[in-house]
């Protein structure tokens, strides 16, 4: 074997050794970097309508009278992390489940305590509540009162009030 052939052989061997070493280092690096776990979590913007109670009651109210300055209070809270742009309320007519009923507007509400007559009459369609653009964790109070028409038949009357939040 001639000297130049040996030289080529040695150079080739060294080159292969270097390539192998580099590959090993690369693999080791790749193995090490695979230990770096990155996580991602997306927190969605939400608004969350929360009422402090699922029902209210006015007790016994005589025909031809009203609840005066005694209000039933409901806390409305936005427990979400996004602003609610519009909060509205509406109601159904008062009914005993049979033939006896009286109009929804006999119920009045306000965002502060009031004497019956000074509140806003509840309606069957949605009405925007003043101050109803609730930021996250913000709340407002709804105060309710009712008047029973004169000569209304004695019975237990029920109503459904809906609070709607937009976001």
């Amino acid at each position, binding site marked *: 074997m001639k000297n130049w052939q040996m030289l080529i052989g040695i150079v080739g061997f060294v080159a292969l050794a270097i390539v192998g070493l580099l590959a090993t280092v690369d693999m080791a690096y790749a193995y090490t970097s695979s230990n770096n776990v990155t996580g991602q979590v997306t927190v969605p913007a939400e608004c969350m309508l929360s*009422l402090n109670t699922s029902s209210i009651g006015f007790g016994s109210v005589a025909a031809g009278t009203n609840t005066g300055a005694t209000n039933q209070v409901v806390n409305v809270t936005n427990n979400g992390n996004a602003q609610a742009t*519009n909060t509205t309320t509406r109601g159904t007519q008062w009914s005993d489940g049979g033939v006896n009923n009286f109009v929804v507007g006999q119920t009045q509400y306000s965002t502060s305590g009031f004497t019956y007559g000074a509140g806003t009459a509840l309606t069957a369609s949605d009405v925007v509540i003043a101050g109803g653009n609730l930021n996250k964790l913000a709340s407002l109070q709804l105060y309710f009162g009712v008047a029973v028409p004169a000569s209304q038949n004695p019975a237990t009357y029920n109503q459904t009030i*809906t609070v709607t*939040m937009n976001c």
Partner: protein
Amino acid sequence: MKNKIKVLVLLGMLLSATLSIASAEFGQTAGVLDFGTLKLGENKTLTYWVVNPGETTIDVNTYYVGNTVSVSPANFTLVPHSQQQIDVTATAEHLGSFSGKVRALGHERGASGVVVLQTEMEKNFVYKVSLSLKTEVCLLLIALTIIFILLYIVYESIIRRRR
């Protein structure tokens, strides 16, 4: 004596815990459902979530007000700490701009009383409808044909006058 007091205090705590009714919580992911511009005849579905993070079961009815969209599912139940995806599909039937609201009305199961309170979540939607590409090309061809015919008529009348 001390043990009796402890028992009474524990009973009191138990009673107050039993009497405190968990309030209903009802929420949804925020944001407007913007369908963008749809081609006539096209339909597109966007989704959002309604959530019940509270301790009560809520029966939900979905519906829309304003311009027409389809909302699915129409009725479902949210058990405590659950969520439901709502699919809203807009179908481009007429040209123009459209908007409305999708609502999810929640009835807290077991709620009773003289005045029952309901919670409702509302979401705005918007979409526009434009002509489809095929219709636009057809209209363009018709317009070009009319222009060509008019030009031909004018050309013919000029030629006749010269003769």
